[in-house]
């Protein structure tokens, strides 16, 4: 554990210990969501069910079941492998405990695929401070993943992951809220995809290049900090914005910008949002085309580690379907969320184009449609 993070956590805990405030348990609600991602030759669909319920006045328990059904013919797959289908199932359980103005939460998450298993344990604490103007939260996660490779029963490796989180929510004025998050994540183990390959110049190959397996470093540490603002407009609506800065020991840098507007009207709630992601620096060991085989200790051709940018336009509508409630249900909403995403890569070439010299292929880009439909009930 980095020393600076340890000191920071100790001081923050000291702040919590000497301060008084009031915490509240999350509200009771149930959500049933269907999701769909379609873009870049990949479709991912499935449900997500989240239920949260208070009991004994001091506890709240939450459970989530989530499924990804993947059909992949992505550019990586069709240029170096064969299309495949895959299913990932994830469940999580969480418990919140309100005690003497502290809110403590514990959680476990399990994710299973045919060639990958992940288990994560979370702990967090939060408290309102300074006349409830400030909410400070701290969190820690410990995870262990097991990586396998289809068709190779002898391959088995792991990843150990730790995460340290600090969050502050601050009332600035009677119409303005500020949120700040900071998170450090450390990974150690087999961090690359066991199937993905890099390409290198090979004059003996008819196409001018050949493939070999990716090799990543076995450690990675990242820092991310995000600042969020939300402002209440005089006619009952809100505008909001966010900036997130990211960097890691693989030399990746990323900037995320968001701006949005929320507007309720006659039982409806509308939301529109623009999100821009810029990754001006990729991993130091990334290359679209290496000069020869085994040219470096570490090699990647994973497009998410390259220099690229993306834009996301979101439209969201929510309708109150149970005005006045029904039996034990206080409120219900029907929601639809649509995202149109565009990805443009500056150093990842489209190898579906043949007949050109290696490195002369056009740069790759793709767009995606992401849809969420869900119902929510409060009880």
């Amino acid at each position: 554990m980095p020393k600076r993070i340890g000191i920071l956590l100790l001081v923050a805990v000291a702040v919590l210990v000497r301060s008084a405030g009031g915490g509240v348990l999350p509200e009771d609600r149930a959500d049933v969501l269907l999701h769909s991602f379609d873009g870049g030759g990949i479709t991912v669909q499935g449900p997500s069910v989240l239920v949260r319920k208070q009991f004994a006045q001091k506890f709240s328990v939450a459970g989530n079941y989530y499924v990804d059904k993947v059909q992949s013919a992505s550019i990586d797959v069709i240029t170096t492998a064969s299309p495949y289908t895959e299913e990932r199932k994830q469940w999580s359980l969480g418990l919140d405990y309100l005690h003497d103005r502290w809110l403590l939460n514990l959680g476990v998450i399990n994710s299973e695929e045919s060639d990958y298993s992940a288990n994560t344990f979370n702990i967090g604490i939060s408290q309102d401070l300074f006349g409830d103007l400030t909410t400070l939260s701290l969190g820690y996660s410990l995870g262990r993943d097991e990586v396998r490779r289809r068709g190779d029963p002898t391959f088995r490796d792991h990843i150990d992951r730790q995460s340290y989180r600090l969050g502050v929510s601050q009332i600035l004025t009677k119409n303005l809220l500020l949120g700040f998050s900071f998170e450090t994540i450390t990974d150690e183990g087999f961090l690359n995809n066991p199937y993905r390959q890099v390409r290198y110049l090979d004059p003996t190959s008819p196409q001018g290049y050949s493939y070999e397996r990716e090799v990543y470093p076995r450690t990675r540490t990242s820092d991310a900090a995000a600042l969020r603002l939300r402002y209440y407009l005089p006619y009952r609506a809100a505008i909001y914005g966010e900036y997130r800065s990211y960097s890691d020991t693989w030399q990746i840098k990323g900037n995320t910008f968001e701006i949005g507007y929320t507007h309720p009207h006659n039982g409806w709630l509308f939301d529109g949002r623009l999100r821009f992601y810029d990754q001006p620096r990729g991993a130091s060991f990334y290359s679209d085309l290496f000069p020869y085989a085994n040219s470096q200790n570490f090699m990647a051709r994973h497009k998410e580690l390259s220099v690229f940018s993306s834009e996301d336009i979101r439209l969201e509508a929510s309708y109150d379907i149970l005005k006045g409630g029904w039996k034990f249900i206080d409120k219900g909403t029907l929601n639809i969320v649509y995202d149109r995403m565009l990805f443009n890569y500056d150093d990842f070439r489209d190898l579906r184009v043949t007949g050109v010299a290696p490195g002369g292929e056009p740069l790759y880009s793709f767009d995606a449609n992401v849809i969420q439909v869900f119902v929510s009930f409060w009880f």
Partner: protein
Amino acid sequence: MRTLRRLAPRASLGRRLLALAALTALGGCHVEPWVKPYERDHLADPVMSFDRNPVSSAYTDHVHEVREGSRGATGSAGGGCGCN
């Protein structure tokens, strides 16, 4: 050497956060709330929630994380998956 140079500004950020937390600990506990509890009805409105629908925001964070080099500071705790 490259790694050491990279760590220097990160440590600086950590020290700044540490100083902020320490200042908060020393001086902030008796702050008179400049927004009184009865002035917070706008802030309690659902349109002002940072995370109005947790089931949706968890999914959205997952969609972005598996397609970007960046990760973390989304306000929630995530688990691992082999979805890259």
